[in-house]
């Protein structure tokens, strides 16, 4: 009996992973790729459809110029060349959630091609290493509808009694971004993949072309992984793991595939070329459709659409309107915020850059914003295995809590409890403070009573202070805080105590 997976260390000692990443991004255009239907997420099934996106007989597509503009933005931001002339093609295959039984996509003439980008991953010694990722292409296509399989145990088609199809998603504009082969030091592979997807998320948000809600599937990653024996130039058979929908899962799924394929190969087996499904809950991939070479999509140029030929003037206009490149922006922000390299690295790796930017915009100091996002929220996200933006806590909440700290109504310790409440969905900061009874006691008389108790209980300390050692008063502050069960503003306590002791 062979093992299912090798230890990752053993796997990487024997094999070098080779990766390719395909990322599908749903654009945030108001209307669909080829018709005027709205693209709002979560509408009742089949309410955002028309003859075009339902593929009714006779209906014809018309290209959404906004989607082309977004595609060009993405292409330019990934340092791609923008085609002077390109076409859509039909990818022919039958599936009930695809109304025309062909997907209108781009094939050998993508709108953007030959680009590159750079990602940062932590190095072992606390520094940062940069890796260049070559971009093969970014092309436009339409999304399919969404099938729900009913009656089976697993929600998968196998064992289901029937399936329901929602065509609201059919025709939503997608950009598929395809990397060239990524070959990095074996132990870095999974981290580089995660950093790449995370970087794309930041980039797409900065470009304002997508909401990039991974939990809603607006960014989906397919990871191609193969292994080759260490030092060998011969590529192995690859698998394609579909729909890996969080940064963390990208890293986990790739690591899993490396360990699985290593186990197969080291026991003398052969990796099967196939599509695999990623299971978030169990952390494994399972075999999906076998991708035989016989699969033939019979691509040909879409005759219902005229070629897309963006003028050079338009492309340059778009280029000049692009926001600052994320890498340059990072340098600028680090300077403005006075963060050390290490601090900045932690912020970037913790995916906290954008939240901190937004929190600082709301009037919070960079240091405080970093403290909450990295110290509290990133930690909570990590503990619960979620991405930071799925926690349900946003810049507005962080700013609200910090405002209360600044006003002296909360201290850091209590603020942490408020964040804990926010993560657990207990309501707004005010509601949590109310429910958990977290407000600082700012009533002077209650504090003075506590101070009197502390003075009475610690005559030796008072003696020290009176004998010219004011620093000893710290112990009295500690006693007061303990008495108040932490719900007092330490600065206020010091002020009142000093007055009492005449120092």
């Amino acid at each position, binding site marked *: 009996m062979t093992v299912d997976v090798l230890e990752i260390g053993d796997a990487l000692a024997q094999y070098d992973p080779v990766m390719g990443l395909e990322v599908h991004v749903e654009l945030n255009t108001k209307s669909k790729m080829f018709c005027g239907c709205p693209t709002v997420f979560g509408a009742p099934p089949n309410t955002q459809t028309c003859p075009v996106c339902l593929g009714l*007989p006779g209906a*014809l597509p018309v290209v959404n110029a906004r989607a082309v503009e977004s595609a060009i933005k993405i292409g330019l931001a990934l340092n791609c060349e923008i085609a002077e002339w390109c076409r859509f093609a039909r990818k022919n295959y039958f599936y009930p959630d695809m109304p025309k*039984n062909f997907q209108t996509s781009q094939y050998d003439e993508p709108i953007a091609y030959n680009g590159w980008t750079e990602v940062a991953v932590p190095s072992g010694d606390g520094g940062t290493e940069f890796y260049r990722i070559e971009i093969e292409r970014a092309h436009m296509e339409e999304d399919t509808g969404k099938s729900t399989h009913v009656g089976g145990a697993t929600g998968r088609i196998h064992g289901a009694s029937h399936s329901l199809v929602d065509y609201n998603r059919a025709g939503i504009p997608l950009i598929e971004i395809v990397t060239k082969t990524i070959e990095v030091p074996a132990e870095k592979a999974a981290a580089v993949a995660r950093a790449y997807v995370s970087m794309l998320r930041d980039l797409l948000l900065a470009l304002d072309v997508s909401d990039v809600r991974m939990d809603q599937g607006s960014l989906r990653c397919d990871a191609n992984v193969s292994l080759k024996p260490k030092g060998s130039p011969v590529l192995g058979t690859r698998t394609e793991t579909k729909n890996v929908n969080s940064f963390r899962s990208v890293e986990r799924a790739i690591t899993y595939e490396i360990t699985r394929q290593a186990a197969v190969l080291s026991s003398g087996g052969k990796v099967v070329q196939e599509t695999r499904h990623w299971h978030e809950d169990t952390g494994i991939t399972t075999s999906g459709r076998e991708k035989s070479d016989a699969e033939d999509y*019979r691509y*040909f140029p879409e005759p219902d659409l005229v070629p897309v030929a963006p003028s050079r003037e338009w492309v340059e206009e778009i280029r000049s309107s692009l926001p600052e490149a994320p890498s340059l922006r990072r340098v600028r922000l680090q300077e403005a915020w006075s963060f050390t390299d290490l601090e900045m690295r932690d912020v970037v790796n913790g995916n906290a850059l954008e939240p901190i930017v937004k929190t600082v915009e709301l009037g919070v100091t960079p240091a405080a914003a970093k403290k909450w996002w990295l110290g509290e929220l990133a930690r909570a996200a990590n503990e619960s295995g979620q991405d930071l933006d799925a926690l349900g806590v946003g810049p507005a909440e962080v700013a609200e809590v910090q405002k209360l700290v600044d006003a002296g109504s909360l201290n850091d310790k209590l603020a942490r409890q408020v964040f804990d409440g926010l993560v657990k969905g207990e309501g707004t900061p005010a509601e949590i403070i109310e429910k958990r009874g977290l407000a600082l006691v700012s009533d002077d008389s209650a504090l003075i009573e506590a101070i009197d108790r502390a003075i009475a209980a610690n005559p030796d300390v008072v003696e020290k202070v009176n004998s010219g050692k004011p620093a000893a008063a710290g112990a009295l502050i500690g006693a007061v805080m303990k008495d108040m069960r932490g719900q007092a503003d330490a600065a206020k306590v010091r002020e009142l105590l000093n007055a009492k002791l005449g120092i």
Partner: protein
Amino acid sequence: MTDLTRKTAVELAELMTSGQASSVEITQAHLDRIAAVDGAVQAFLHVDTEGALAQAAEVDRKRGAGEQLGPLAGVPLALKDVLTQEGVPTTAGSKILEGWKPPYDSTVVKRLRSAGIVILGKTNMDEFAMGSSTENSAYFTTHNPWDLGRIPGGSGGGSSAAVAAYEAPLAIGTDTGGSIRQPGAFTGTVGVKPTYGGTSRYGLIALASSLDTPGPCARTTLDTALLHEAIAGYDPMDSTSIKQDVPPVVDAARRADVNGLRIGVVKELGGEGYQPGVEARFHESVELLTKLGAEVVEVSCPHFQYALPAYYLILPSEASSNLAKFDAMRYGLRVGDDGVNSAEKVMSLTREAGFGDEVKRRIMLGTHALSSGYYDAYYGQAQKVRTLIQRDFANAYEQVDVLVSPATPTTAFPIGDRADDPIAMYKNDLCTIPVNLAGNAAASFPCGLADEDDLPVGFHVMAPVMRDDLLYQVGSALEAALAEQWGGVLMAQAPELEVTR
């Protein structure tokens, strides 16, 4: 009052403007005519009696209220069953769409409605427009009003036969390789294939997207031009639509003047395989145009000989993909849905039962031509031929204004004659296909009867992109000269149909 069904659209419009007839009376007269003769002709798949009379009443109301109406308002029309009309059964001649009522109007129908044209019903056609005789209709074969034992041409045989049988003064067809012009030629009527992109394909159930073109049919050149003007023009719903003004087709039809026009006779479209009677009428017409002042020269288009094979790769390729949507999932026929069969099985059973032989033949051809490893040799090569044919036209139009040829190599053939020989059937469209591959405009005008069989012959005129007006200039001049010669229109020589009901 004289029989309203014998009038041209222009005459009917005059009767309505002068208050001598209402649209309801005219529409009813045509519905009566359909009831009387369509049992024999079988031009209609669906007659929308109530809908047509309601549309007619609406036009009459508007006219009574003094509203501004288009030149064809209130005139009835027969619509090829390949164009969607909201709420009216639309089958494209196929069982797979039996019972489907589209939830939307095609652009052509929208424009007909805004022109006040009354839609009588949907006409028979070869299934998904694949054929040249209507024998591939999944429902029945339409009969040629000139000889009920013969086919009316196809795929739009229903539309042309309806016009020739006086069931409608106007009809809409669609032309992918000759489906308007060839039935026009076979029924002694006018059929125009506008420039590709000159009329909108939105709502046209696609056969081959890069070739399909909706167009007008009628008994006179002027009627055809008026209908052309009503349906043509840029449509933002069709991205292959041309953003230009409609060529001045009505003016051209009224001018009837070819003096100084340079006409090129295509050398490759004639000779062997052409019926002598067809060639005789064609050459007489060319002589007539010469007498009217046209400069006639012979022009060579050497790549036309490859048009047929290229067409029968491009068309099936596009069709195989266009017809993939007929899968029983959302509309139309559904076979084998027993709660046990998979969706894939239901798709396959439905397509097996719902498509006819010719449709399956072309889906298989197209699927093969697009498959990996064959794509370059078939589809890719055919696209190259297409470019060469476009160059032939471009070269020719440097020398002449229009090109002419017979519309078909023969006259209408007997029902069943070529049903088992697809290649013989395909050859019907030898003269008409090159134009579709190039996207130019073309038309067939009646130019007499062949001596052998006393059946109509079509005179084929081809014009450059968006010069559709030239077609009407030639057609109207020829029509006037021939009418003078015959002492009336060709249709006057058609045999009277027996009224069956």
